[in-house]
């Protein structure tokens, strides 16, 4: 195997996972975790400058997956930095043991490996295996605390995730069966770039059924309603750096896979149009999750539902299709990843300070911990779609395009957005303002990742760099 950047984003996490599994000291392993994530991010960033290798039967790099890879490795890096400062306190409070931590760090890199593999793979079979690997490693991390709730959450995630992944495999088999008469037996019929190139010749009926299986299967992993039941539990009970990574990255990886199959469907004119199905699921998730935001009592669960809501918006945008809606969907996905992981970094620090995740027990953060409290306020206002954040810009784009193309759907969309906005604000005022209450420990974890993400969101919201606009435009065109 050659050491070009696409393989480096796989080799580094794989080697690091093996090293971390053998490393007894948790302090050293936390920093190795950071270093490995940094190296992976650098390898991913170098994809911009180096010449891209030819698309092979297994791996490929194109304009679309480069967005996902860079985002994935970047948030992977900041979450690793946060985790390094966060996890020490968890050890002190006795929630985890050193042996658990060794396992946790190794699994972190296994998960990064799985996600990167899913993103660079040019093969629908390999993609499936990679998504399964990423799922399994996150299941193990969700159950890390070994409490009733954590085990129940891990079990639920595991069973629902497995059924989803089983359905996705059946869909994958159907795609292969459709392609086999055209592309021949064996490997070529599973290479996604070849599938898309010859999509017009594939049997449309077969593709239709396959797509339904695929969207239900991978849609479970995206967290689309009504297949979302695992998501709030998994977010609430696992370690917070993992909640950040789940929301910010794993959902995106599943979304990426759905997009690849959407491109395949769109390339065959006689097959079912994938758009309406995605639009319906997206809107359902948005409105459902927005309504669910009101009665949350657990802060991590609250933001987990907000992730379902935003995945709904993104899937809706991609379902609409067309250059502008795709651009908006892509931008919103990037913004959501950055903002939501920032929120989870803040929430992790808060839960450590207050010793609880109950919303009712957290009060007046802006007074007791100004830097953290205001960071949370800015992040939550951003995710709710206030200007000048990048989320505002992308939501604005989604709304305007849908008004010009499907005004009735746009009304539903705006209704969902307003509903979610009010719910988030309602909870935010309680948490951030008023008299501080409850335990008041000093801050244990670093705020650097939180503010770094916020700075990026604002930067993109105020002035999106020209090359980035060009780049996203070309990706949007690619998505069709």
């Amino acid at each position, binding site marked *: 195997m050659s050491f070009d950047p696409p393989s480096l984003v796989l080799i580094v996490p794989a080697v690091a996972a093996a090293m971390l599994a053998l490393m007894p000291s948790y302090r050293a392993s936390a920093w190795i975790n950071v270093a490995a994530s940094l190296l992976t991010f650098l390898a991913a960033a170098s994809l911009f400058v180096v010449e891209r290798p030819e698309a092979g039967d297994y791996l490929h790099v194109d304009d679309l997956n480069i967005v996902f890879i860079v985002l994935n490795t970047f948030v992977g890096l900041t979450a690793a930095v946060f985790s390094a400062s966060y996890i020490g306190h968890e050890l002190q409070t006795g929630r985890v043991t050193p042996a658990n931590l060794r396992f946790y760090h190794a699994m972190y890199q296994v998960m990064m490996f799985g996600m990167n593999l899913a993103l660079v793979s040019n093969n629908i*079979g*390999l993609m*499936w*295996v990679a998504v*399964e*690997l990423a799922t*399994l490693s996150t*299941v193990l991390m969700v*159950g890390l605390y*070994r409490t*009733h*709730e954590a*085990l*129940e959450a*891990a*079990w639920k995630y*595991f*069973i629902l995730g*497995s*059924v989803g992944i*089983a*359905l996705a*495999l*059946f869909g994958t*088999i*159907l795609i*292969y*069966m459709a392609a*086999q*008469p055209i592309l021949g*037996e*064996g*490997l070529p*019929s*599973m290479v996604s770039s070849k599938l898309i190139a010859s999509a017009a010749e594939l*049997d449309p*009926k*077969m593709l239709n*059924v396959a797509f339904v299986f695929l969207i239900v299967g991978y849609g479970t992993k995206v967290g689309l309603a009504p297949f979302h039941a695992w998501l*709030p*539990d998994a977010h*609430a009970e696992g370690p917070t750096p993992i909640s950040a990574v789940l929301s910010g990255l794993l959902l995106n990886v599943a979304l990426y896979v759905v997009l690849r199959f959407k491109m395949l469907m769109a390339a065959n004119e006689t097959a079912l149009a994938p758009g309406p199905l995605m639009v319906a699921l997206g809107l359902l998730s948005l409105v459902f999750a927005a309504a669910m935001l009101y*009665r*949350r*009592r*657990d802060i991590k*669960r609250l933001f987990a539902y907000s992730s379902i809501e935003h995945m709904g918006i993104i899937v809706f945008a991609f379902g609409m299709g067309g250059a502008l809606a795709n651009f908006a969907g892509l931008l919103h996905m990037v913004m959501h990843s950055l903002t939501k992981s920032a929120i989870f970094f803040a929430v992790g620090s808060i839960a450590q300070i207050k010793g609880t*995740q*109950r919303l009712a027990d957290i009060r007046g953060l802006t007074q007791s911990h100004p830097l953290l409290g205001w960071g949370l306020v800015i992040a939550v206002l951003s995710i709710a779609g206030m200007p000048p954040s990048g989320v505002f810009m992308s939501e604005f784009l989604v709304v305007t395009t849908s008004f010009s193309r499907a005004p009735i759907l746009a009304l539903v969309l705006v209704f969902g957005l307003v509903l979610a906005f009010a719910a988030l604000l309602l909870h935010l005022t309680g948490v951030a303002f008023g008299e501080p209450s409850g335990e008041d420990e000093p801050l244990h974890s670093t705020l650097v990742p939180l503010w770094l993400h916020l700075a990026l969101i604002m930067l993109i919201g105020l002035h999106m760099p020209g090359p980035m606009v060009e780049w996203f435009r070309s990706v949007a065109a690619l998505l069709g």
Partner: protein
Amino acid sequence: MPDLAFDIAHMLAGSLVLVSFMMIYQDRLSALLNTFALQALLLAAAVGWQAYIQGASHLYASAGIALVFKAIIVPWALHKMIQRLGIHREVETVVGVVPTMLAGMGLVALSILLMLQLTETAESALAREDLAFSLSVILLGMLMMVTRRNAVSQVVGFMSLENGLILATTGAQGMPFVVEISVAFSVLIAMIVIGVFLFRIRERFDSVDTEAIEHFRGEKRS
């Protein structure tokens, strides 16, 4: 003798569906595990036969995994476990046997109608029928997962679902990654079994009844 080869493959795949029905009405956990072992055995035979008629030697590996891992090791481990937990006599079905069987028949009819119509243009009749049978096994496995409340029977339901998937992968001629997928699924199943073992669901929750663990929810804590 292409016809005989076809008939045997047909019979093996069909009997997988039959055994799926048998699993639906088992009301003892140990009997359920034995029935599952029988299904895994049939799967191994079906995959092995496909390997022989397709001349695809890598499928023998899949058949071997099904035989050793799913027909012997997993049922044995689960038997041990339910004995230790003292639940080898009980099974609680949420829905009665008759409605479940009727629903199962409906699902099989659905999958045959869907798949045969879908694959009208496919050249090999074998692939068509295999796909119909495997979708039936998958749907019956899902049916079992939703009608049972016991964690062990849900796991059995999932494994039976997965048997259907392996049948589908071997039926799709020349599909790459079949062995890898078998291995991936074996890892998955091993994890479930180890998970149930290690987490000692019994000890933690006093029951492997998933209904009992479901009330641990963030929302319901006051």
